[in-house]
């Protein structure tokens, strides 16, 4: 039995390793196809007011050397690969004296702390509501379904804007932007933590609400499907208690929802990044926006790589858990 799991685990691991290599390649190549010379853009910013052309030329060459954009593509790739392996993503073009690793280090935890709890909470609440709607039917279902349907089709940034206008601008319950008060310096004081919690609420709930809608709809249809299945009718004839049947039904309905979570994490992350931008939350989404505006390809490439790795990792964890939950996987692997 354990051998079956090991095989499953190794198989998944192999796949994720391969996907990672592919994503890494795409990440390196695509932004470098961009027309225009980003180094020239930086130099023109630094050299403003310099009338000495040979000085500008010297700065240009120095930066080209620094970022390695004068070497052929393959050589750049191996330099990049070597550096990335050491956690060195080079310098950021748009925030020059800072390194990309530094910029990312200061924003990644905000994103992780915001998105993963939001997606998981949304998933849990959504599934509970969906299962209740399928089981209780009637009024609860009639009210919940259209709301979920509407909410799940609403773009995350739209929900973020509405939350911000209602709770931030009009009711003034929560601040409208940033991850903490603009007058504070990050530290472990009570004042700062309180400010972080207050700033957390709006982005968090706008992501949660969107996730709830989609999950509730999925869980409701899966549960209705299972509730009408033959084994349920058979169990009823056998006189098995309703409570016990419901337990089986929701367990079975849950399995596709777990896969659903794994597969929708990619999409959810995209939506959540844009929600961060709406609230100027100091996470990867806002960093990405600044990178795009500053034509900063080392930063864009690093941010997208990190996001991909995070999505891959989350998927991997879910797939491994799934191997333990779903008995059918055990069965197929031991053949």
């Amino acid at each position, binding site marked *: 039995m354990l051998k079956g799991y090991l095989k499953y685990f190794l198989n998944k691991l192999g796949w994720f390793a391969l996907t990672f290599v592919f994503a890494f390649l*795409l990440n390196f190549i695509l932004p470098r196809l961009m027309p*225009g010379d980003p180094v020239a853009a930086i130099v023109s910013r630094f050299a403003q007011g310099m009338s000495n052309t040979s000085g500008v030329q010297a700065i240009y060459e120095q930066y080209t050397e620094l970022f390695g954009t004068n070497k052929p593509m393959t050589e750049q790739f191996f330099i990049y690969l070597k550096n990335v392996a050491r956690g060195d993503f080079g310098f950021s073009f748009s925030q020059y004296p800072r390194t990309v690793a530094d910029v990312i280090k200061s924003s990644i935890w905000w994103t992780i702390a915001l998105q993963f709890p939001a997606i998981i909470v949304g998933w849990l609440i959504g599934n509970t509501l969906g299962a209740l709607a399928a089981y209780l039917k009637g009024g609860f279902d009639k009210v919940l379904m259209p709301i979920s349907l509407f909410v799940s*089709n609403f773009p995350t940034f739209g929900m973020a804007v509405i939350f911000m206008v209602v709770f931030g601008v009009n009711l003034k319950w929560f601040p409208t932007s940033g991850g903490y008060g603009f007058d504070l310096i990050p530290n472990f004081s009570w004042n700062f933590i309180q400010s972080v919690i207050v700033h957390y609420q709006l982005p968090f709930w706008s992501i949660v609400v969107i996730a709830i809608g989609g999950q509730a709809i999925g869980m409701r249809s899966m549960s209705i499907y299972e509730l009408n299945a033959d084994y349920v009718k058979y169990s009823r004839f056998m006189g098995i208690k309703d409570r016990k049947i419901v337990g089986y039904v929701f367990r079975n309905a849950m399995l596709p929802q777990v896969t659903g979570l794994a597969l929708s994490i990619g999409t959810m992350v995209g939506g959540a990044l844009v929600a961060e931008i709406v609230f100027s939350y100091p996470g990867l989404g806002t960093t990405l926006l600044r990178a*795009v505006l500053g034509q900063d390809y080392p930063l864009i490439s690093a941010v997208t790589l990190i996001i991909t790795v995070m*999505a891959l990792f989350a998927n991997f964890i879910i797939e491994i858990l799934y191997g333990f939950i779903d008995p059918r996987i055990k069965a197929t692997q031991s053949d």
Partner: protein
Amino acid sequence: MKHILQQVFRSGKFVTGFSIFMAIILIVVFYPMIITDAPLSIIGQGTFFPPGIYVSVYDSLSSTTYILNLDDATTKRITNKLNDEDRVSIKEWLVAAGIPESEIDTTDTQKLLDQWFTNYDSQKNVPGMTNAKRNYYVRLNTALKSLLSPEAAAVMQVNPLNNELEQIGTINQTDYVNVGEVANIRILPLGTDNFGRDVLTELVSATRVSLQIGFVAGIIATLIGLTLGLLAGYIGGFVDDIITFITNLFIVIPPFVLLILISFSIGQEQRGAFTIAVVIGFTSWVWTARAVRSQVISLRNRDHVNLSKLSGHSIVHIILNDILPYILSYVIMAFILQISSGILAEAGLSILGLGPRTTDVPTLGLMMNWAMIYQAHILGNWWAYMPVLVTIALITFSMNLMNTGMDQIFNPALRD
């Protein structure tokens, strides 16, 4: 076919979704025929004019004036001019002058003004009041008095011969013009945006472009997904292995990340609405491919397919006649979802600043982007972003309603 259509149109959800969607399409088609302004022409000098009817002041002056004696005209005029801040200030002064706070009601304009004129004295020294505040009260008093005075306002013009002002007319407080007789009136039902463009005209045009983006992206994604799914599912073997390999690679990479990378690589100048649509199409076929493949695999060994094979039909013939009809309902539903997610993807990209270039056509995402950059949501200029959000929500909601309705017909197990 006719039977299926009848069934589909009997589903309440589908019909609701279909009606909303058709209404949007009709507006998008007919609005530009009635109002032929260019959607990106800048008409307003300044940002975010609120929705309303704009009447030319200059033309009103030269229109025929009618005298109407209305009792509440003065009160209305003052109510309109006296903002909440002034009312609070008046209350402060009155309280300082010794009127009990319970007798002052800032919402009752008439009573407030009476109290003000009987009690206000510019010579009176209120302890603790700054000079600026004292001057403010003097100004307020003058403004209120001039509003209440029955004197007419004079209309002057510079005489080009001697550069002197000459009075060419007067406007009494009882003068009215008939709006129908004023030459220039512009109705801006949704005001103007940050560039001074008519939001409604822009919105209709943006909806059209966004729908086109959705359709192009949906068609491309569905075609790629369908082709790959059919090939992988029907031919199987090595072809299946390769296609499944590619699908598995793309399925865990967040599509939004790919979109960002590709649109960034294309560069701002090359990014037209059509290019963005193609890029979205090329990054969102994965789901269709996977689902079509698994459905085709379950169909592949059915009797009617085997019979067709034995009869010597070509692969193309079998796929078109024996496989496609069975998965068509699914493909159409997937197509509808692709359209709505394409529209959302464009909006997300535009907010990141990676949408279509901003100079030739508006899209829903770009309108949203402009509204966010100019902080319409913080300034309370709801007309710049709310209609855009409502439009996006209506489009995606109507499409998903159609989808849910169709789903319930084609999967009887899901029926309530």
